[in-house]
């Protein structure tokens, strides 16, 4: 692939509409979701640090708001992992494999 005759293929592929669409599909899903889960995580951390009156309130028996928020972090983590898996397998895997085959053909493999 360091063969000079094939060096153009990477930029060619990078500029192709198929690749641009694949990149858009990946980034428009992964980036906002990353910002969202980090914001939600830091909201949780900041609430446990600064909103003690709120998080110490009992919800059910001895279980307080802090526990519910903490358990929700587990729930959202599992849900986000599942959402990403669903998005990748339905929207990313097929175009990504098609592009890979095309590039490797171009590289002479």
């Amino acid at each position, binding site marked *: *692939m*360091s063969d000079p005759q094939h*060096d153009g293929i*990477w*930029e060619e*592929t*990078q500029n192709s509409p198929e*690749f641009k669409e*694949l*990149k858009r599909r*990946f980034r428009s899903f*992964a980036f906002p*979701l*990353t910002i969202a*889960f*980090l914001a939600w*995580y*830091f909201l*949780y*951390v*900041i609430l*446990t*640090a*600064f909103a*003690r009156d709120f*998080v*110490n309130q009992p919800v*059910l*028996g*001895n*279980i*307080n708001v*802090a*526990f519910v928020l*903490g358990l929700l*972090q*587990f729930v959202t*983590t*599992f849900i*986000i*992992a599942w959402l*990403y*898996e669903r998005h*990748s397998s339905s929207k990313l*895997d097929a175009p*990504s*494999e098609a*592009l*890979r085959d095309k*590039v*490797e053909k171009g*590289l002479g*493999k």
Partner: protein
Amino acid sequence: MSHTLLSTILFLIFVALTLVLVIRASRSNKQSSDFFDGGASFSGFQNGLAIAGDYMSAASFLGIAGTIALFGYDGFLYSIGFLVAWLVALLLIAEPLRNSGRFTMGDVLAFRMRQRPVRTASATSTVVVSIFYLLAQMVGAGALVSLLLGITDPVAKNWIIAGVGVLMILYVTIGGMKGTTYVQIVKAFLLMIGATLMTVLVLWHFNFNVSDLLGAAVKNSGNASLLNPGQKFGKDVLDAAGNPDIFHSIVSKLDLISLGLALVLGTAGLPHILIRFYTVPTAKAARKSVNWAIGNIGFFYLMTIALGFGAAALVDRVSLLRGFKVDATGCFIDANGKAIADASGTCFNADSLATMGADLKKLLVPVDLSGNVAAPQLAEFLGGGSGSTGGAVMLAIIGAIAFATILAVVAGLTLASSSSFAHDLYANVIKRGTATPEQEVRVAKIAAIAIGAVAIVLAIAAQTLNVAFLVAIAFAIAASGNLPAVLYSLYWKRFNTRGAVWAIYGGLISALILLFFSPVVTGTPTSLIPLVGDAPRWDLFPLQNPGIVSIPLGFIAGWLGTITSNERNVQKYAELEVRSLTGAAIGKAVQH
């Protein structure tokens, strides 16, 4: 049969079993590169278990359960940070890393850069992070063994640490990545079974009513606030007059946020975790392995609630806390420094601890707040209590699993740092890419022996250091020095050699400097250099965890280095971007 003997036998069975696996794995290695990536032949499920085995260290199993047992809710914060962190790896790192690298973190960082400076920086950071992490695990092993096996003789303890070191060197040099992976899979399996067993027994004890478990934990601990955040992190500090001390409260809360930042961003910068993504053949398998890991790790961290609060509720407080404050004559003292004595005025000491009444025991002031033995003690209780056969069996099983846990993690760390030494420093910096694969593997094996030896010596010298402190350093450095460089490499077109070098050293050095000037090193009674009498202090930086400052500094340094350098690498970035999203030419070295 005593639990000591049983524990030793179970552990030896584990060692024998894993050594057989490792030797068999070494026979199936087809080419020399298998040493680094296990032939990239594992399935997503296998690698998911191995990631869990590589990630859940002594700090997770013993440390979190112990922190919850002693400080309640705050220990749970670790569990949450350690889990949520996996989303960074899943969404941004695992797949592009698998697609564009081969053996080390440096492969991706140096992809489109000048090789020598970037690989040198990457190897430095890999070895520094791994050594701190290694030290934590080996010091933990020493502490665990002395508590479980009743070995207090310092010489015997040193031999145990050396033994752990020799075993990890054997695993890595014989089995390489494949062998190490099998050890981690077996360990993950055992840890999950052991933790599930204990969790079911704890919940059974409370008729599967979690609220009752929490209530019993509050009652047994005598701490009404055990279920509220703020017992350990982000404290509401009072001044001498009993009024709220706004400044110190804010500092403490910033420290909590700083810890949260280091935990959630550190994982995706840990070299021994990153190289696990190379053991599967495709990005899809890398994604599946992270999903399996999230499932396993999440389930395990949920169980830490039952383990930690179970220990708080069921284990006798005095045995949970082990050591207590004493005066010059060896008598236990209360919080006011007054000797604790019976009605006749005879004070209690370590020998008469068992005869103390429950009321007097409440006055004891614990000095060892690590809580590292909470989980094994809970196991003993669940088996039937101290002195019972069931208790001895449970203690032995959980002790052996804890030891297996440590062993699997140290093997992964040794592999990561020796791979980086051989592949980044030797092959690409010293030999400038002319080393043969056989030479590379030979250097990696020698490096594994050398790193193992260094870790043994340092761990023996560092036995008094706090395990959590060492792990916190590793996470903070990984988040500050590695993560910004990895993210910029994968996603920022303009990023270049100077940016990568500045990002790594900027984050690494600022984290280390801030730690040096933090209360972790001097200025408090629990510092590395404890504040007693006129001990020197230079705690100019008020936070225990440097992340909130050093992580942004890593990002800023990387940005600044990039924009002040004219180097452009548009073509190479095109290759990186296409490869990272499509997996074209996967596993092939980039030639320069």
